[in-house]
């Protein structure tokens, strides 16, 4: 064949596509110009098509050539004013042009493609049969249309799917609203329009099942619109079923390329039967009543457009009612208003055939003119592949890094020109970053939109009445976050309907309206997005939660008794927790709430629950706006830099000089700082990271980063606080995923990698937050079996190379680090000046005869024990740990100063008899106390 010359073929395709590119707009202009059309413009289109025809013929592309030829003939008639540029003519030409494009896209297979419908349509126009149906109708006539579908470019198909899904969603939303306000005509119209558009496109693309279904639904809606019968629950149910079925068909088209066999034509028949039944009922009751309730029963001016509207409304309605005029006259002016502008241009030529054969409708022109009417809106937006946006985001991330890098140089070079250039770069980068970030923003409404339906179905299933209200639908979030919160939110909504809101009779008993209200609220606050899910239900049954927690061994009775109500509420986020008396297929299996929490924490968010018995529950979710680039505080610990997300940061505290030594106090071994009178637990980053203490320099400065985790504050003591910076978050590699204290990594300005601290994980590992909870979970097994009374909190000390001692934490007043060179001697005893007093020291190595470890200078750990106003310091080599443990495998000892030996954390540990030890050194210590 003449396909041999592939190069030539390619050139032809490109050229032809260029020719066609303008044709569409030119044709549309022609249509708008009507009889006053610009002949020059027709010539342009003619020439474009003509050159395609010529080249196609030369290359042996018969199908393409044939179609171009027929189009050319029609254009010729237009040029000679033998034809008017009616919308039918233009439509047919547009479709032909589309088909030409499709042929060009698959040029190799073009000869095998079927373009008959177009040819037929064009020929019909040529033959002067203006009234023939447009190709999409004849396409419907072809059974299954497999060949025809090939002609649809995949892009057009995708657009159809996206559009139709949108339309379905819209229809669903409106239907839900319609259920509340059955009389709302605008809603009814909106549903009608959505369904109608789907029907039109489906018909055009040859998806017969979808078309038939939507058609049936449309008929029902049409009848309601005409006031034949009112909208009620049974109608809503039917329409929802239809929407679901159409959605299934669309999914099938999306995944398999055809409508699938899951949905059968039966449904459409059922709906038609349903309609008949409804109609006969109403007719029996008398349509007068039905009509008179419609306020607009005024015999509206018989607009030219109206018959066609009615034609598309309901074929059955027409059949059922002996007097079609009634239907026409009862048409609402609002409908005419909405549809008429399109109809007037598109329909007149078709009005006649429709009236004669009402079963064969042509919705396509409506949809096409529909889309052109909306084109002003769609022109300003385009659909972009998310992958492309992601890529862009990564690149911008790199740019931000490079910018940071350059900014660092900038500070070392003194050049004003460079500075100003840098400033510009800085500004532009920031703006670009914001812009790109915005492209990824989506309103949270996209997630919420499916909830009304979900709530409705669930409520029906649970026999409850639930109304859903949404505030702040337009609140925007990064797409990745939207994706991430979809499931957690769905779960929470399900839970609320299933557990939160009571059954109507219970509500009535409690003096509440029978209909429960579920409110979704979203708003921005301090660089974060807050999402609230509120209900006015029964609230959490705290007693039951407590009982359940104990029953499941997650908590002990004592722990539960001590807990604040708020903490009790948050127990439901523990794994394996469910108070539902029965497991419904909605929720109650006990998985879920913990997953909700984990998922939200995974994206840097927090969940909090507040419940008022009898009044309802509010679940508050706080999530960051975006994940990709975040502001962070850079701190140093042992010359390594770490980033702390600014979101968690409350304030910075710097203690200098005297303050740094005195203002950190100890409560039974736990360091605290008084922050404006409130005790702030302190966590030493070095300890948490297992970095040895810096012995070389005794810093006079203590840097405290006050952080918030889970609504609790704690102070993180770090070596240095550097600066605040925008960092690009990169995920942790698989090898590090399980290290809970990090949430990610980033690259610093100098190109080195820094770790991002996970404040939540840090707080948990330091037992700042939910300490009781965490421990409760991990200890639950052994604790459940043992009696709690043997539990002791012990301070474990390391003395000498490998000896371990422990003493009850209650006996410890303070833990101190004292400089070794401060030790003085008095009265044959080592002492230090401590808080203005003389503190005698006891070296455990000496008194207990333990081999001393060769400690070289620096600081020594001292355990301070006080009895009234007298204190004594126990010098140890190391403070190992504070453990809460039950003493097992104990063995009594004979030695003075020790009570018994036990195994603690896998080490044999001697328990100190502290009074005895002190007496060994200073027999008068306790006597003095007694005397005093």
């Amino acid at each position, binding site marked *: 064949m003449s396909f041999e010359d592939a190069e030539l073929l390619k050139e032809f395709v490109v050229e032809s596509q260029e020719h066609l590119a303008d044709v569409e707009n030119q044709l549309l202009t022609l249509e708008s110009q009507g009889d006053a059309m610009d002949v020059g413009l027709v010539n342009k289109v003619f020439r474009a098509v003509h050159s395609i025809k010529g080249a196609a013929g030369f290359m042996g592309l018969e199908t393409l050539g044939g179609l171009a030829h027929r189009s050319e003939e029609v254009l010729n008639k237009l040029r000679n004013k033998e034809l008017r540029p009616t919308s039918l003519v233009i439509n047919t030409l547009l479709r032909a042009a589309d088909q030409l494009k499709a042929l060009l896209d698959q040029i190799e297979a073009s000869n095998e493609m079927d373009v008959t419908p177009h040819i037929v349509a064009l020929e019909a126009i040529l033959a002067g049969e203006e009234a023939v149906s447009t190709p999409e109708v004849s396409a419907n006539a072809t059974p299954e249309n497999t060949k025809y579908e090939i002609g649809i470019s995949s892009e057009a198909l995708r657009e159809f799917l996206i559009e139709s899904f949108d339309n379905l969603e819209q229809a669903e939303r409106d239907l839900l609203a319609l259920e509340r306000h059955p009389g709302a005509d605008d809603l009814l119209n909106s549903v009608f329009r959505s369904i109608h558009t789907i029907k039109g496109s489906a018909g055009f693309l040859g998806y017969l099942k979808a078309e038939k279904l939507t058609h049936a639904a449309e008929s029902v809606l049409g009848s309601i619109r005409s006031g034949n019968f009112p909208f009620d629950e049974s109608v809503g149910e039917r329409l929802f079923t239809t929407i679901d079925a159409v959605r299934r068909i669309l999914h099938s088209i999306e995944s398999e390329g055809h409508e699938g066999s899951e949905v059968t034509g039966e449904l459409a028949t059922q709906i038609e039967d349903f309609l008949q039944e409804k109609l006969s009922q109403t007719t029996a009751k008398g349509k007068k009543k039905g009509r008179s309730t419609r306020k607009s029963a005024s015999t509206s001016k018989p607009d030219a457009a109206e018959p066609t509207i009615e034609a598309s409304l309901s074929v059955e309605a027409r059949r059922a009612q002996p007097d079609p005029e009634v239907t026409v006259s009862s048409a609402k002016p609002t409908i005419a208003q909405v549809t008429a502008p399109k109809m007037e241009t598109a329909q007149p030529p078709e009005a006649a055939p429709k009236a004669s054969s009402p079963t064969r409708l042509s919705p396509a022109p409506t949809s096409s003119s529909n889309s052109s009417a909306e084109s002003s809106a769609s022109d300003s937006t385009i659909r972009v592949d998310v992958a492309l946006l992601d890529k862009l985001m990564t690149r911008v991330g790199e740019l931000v890094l490079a910018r940071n890098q350059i900014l660092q140089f900038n500070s070392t070079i003194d050049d004003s020109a460079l500075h100003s250039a840098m400033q510009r770069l800085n500004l532009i980068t920031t703006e670009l970053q914001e812009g790109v970030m915005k492209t990824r923003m989506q309103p949270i409404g996209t997630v919420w939109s499916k909830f009304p339906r979900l709530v409705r179905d669930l409520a029906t299933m649970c026999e409850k009445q639930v109304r859903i209200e949404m505030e702040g639908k337009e609140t925007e979030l990064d797409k990745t976050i939207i994706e991430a919160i979809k499931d957690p939110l769905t779960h929470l909504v399900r839970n609320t309907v299933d557990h939160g809101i009571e059954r109507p009779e219970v509500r009535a008993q409690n003096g509440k309206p029978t209909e429960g209200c579920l409110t979704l609220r979203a708003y921005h606050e301090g660089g974060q997005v807050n999402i609230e899910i509120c209900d006015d239900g029964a609230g959490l049954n705290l007693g039951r939660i407590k009982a359940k927690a104990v029953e499941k061994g997650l908590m002990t009775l004592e722990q539960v008794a001590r807990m604040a109500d708020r903490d009790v509420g948050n127990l439901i986020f523990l794994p394996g927790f469910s108070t539902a008396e029965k497991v419904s297929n909605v929720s109650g299996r006990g998985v879920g709430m913990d997953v909700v929490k984990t998922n939200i924490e995974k994206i840097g968010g927090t969940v909090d629950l507040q419940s008022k018995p009898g009044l309802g529950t509010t679940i508050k979710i706080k999530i960051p706006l975006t994940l990709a680039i975040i502001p962070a505080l850079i701190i140093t610990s042992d010359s390594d830099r770490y980033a702390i997300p600014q979101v968690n940061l409350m304030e910075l505290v710097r203690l200098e000089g005297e303050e740094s030594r005195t203002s950190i106090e100890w409560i039974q071994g736990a360091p605290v700082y008084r922050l404006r009178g409130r005790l702030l637990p302190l966590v030493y980053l070095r300890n948490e990271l297992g970095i040895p203490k810096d012995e070389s320099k005794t810093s006079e400065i203590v840097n405290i980063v006050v952080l918030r985790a889970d609504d609790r504050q704690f102070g993180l003591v770090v070596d240095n606080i550097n600066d605040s910076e925008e960092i690009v978050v990169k995920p942790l590699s*698989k090898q*590090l995923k399980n290290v809970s204290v990090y949430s990610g990594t980033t690259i610093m300005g100098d190109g080195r*990698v*820094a770790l991002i601290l996970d404040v939540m994980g840090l707080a948990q590992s330091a037992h700042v937050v939910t300490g009781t909870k965490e421990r409760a979970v991990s200890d639950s097994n052994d604790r459940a079996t043992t009696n709690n009374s043997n539990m002791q909190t012990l301070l474990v000390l390391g003395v000498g190379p490998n000896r371990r001692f422990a003493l009850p934490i209650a006996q410890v007043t303070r833990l101190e680090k004292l400089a070794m060179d401060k030790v003085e001697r008095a009265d044959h005893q080592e002492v230090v000046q401590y808080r203005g007093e003389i503190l005698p020291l006891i070296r455990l190595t000496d008194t207990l005869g333990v081999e001393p470890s060769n400690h070289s200078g620096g600081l020594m750990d001292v355990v301070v024990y006080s009895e009234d106003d007298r204190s004594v310091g126990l010098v140890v080599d190391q403070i190992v740990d504070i453990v809460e443990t039950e003493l097992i495998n104990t063995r009594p000892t004979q030695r003075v100063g020790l009570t018994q030996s036990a195994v603690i954390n896998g080490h044999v540990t001697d328990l100190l008899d502290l009074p005895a030890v002190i007496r060994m050194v200073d027999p008068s210590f306790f006597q003095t106390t007694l005397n005093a």
Partner: protein
Amino acid sequence: MIASRQLCTFLLDGHLFGVDAQTVQEVIRYQEMTRVPKAPAAVSGLINLRGQIVTAIDLRTRLGMKPRENGKRPMNVVVRSDDGAVSLLVDQIGDVIEVDAENFESPPDTLQGPSRELVQGAYKLNGRLLLLLNCAEAVQLVTE
């Protein structure tokens, strides 16, 4: 039948190891690393490889060998894994060697310890054994 394959070889404590050359993305000299406290012992740190953050795994630690002598800097063999690139720290890099399947033998049962799972077998070269490292397994770390 693929009788022969190319292995990228390297030395670890005097042993010659090899990984499939196909899986090796690149070999680079020692890089500054950011250490990761609390990470599994075998993780030496994180490397910035042209904007991509790569975890460096010390194969000596991974295979339970004694640590590298002080001052000796390891080389990075960057391999592709399911989870992006991972760098394997080795003593010294060797040649790319073409090996024959017929010279291959599974490891003896006496081989114990972490090597048991990580060494897939040995190629008997002239006067030397080339141990085939199971790369995918080597980058799997158990977090304690």
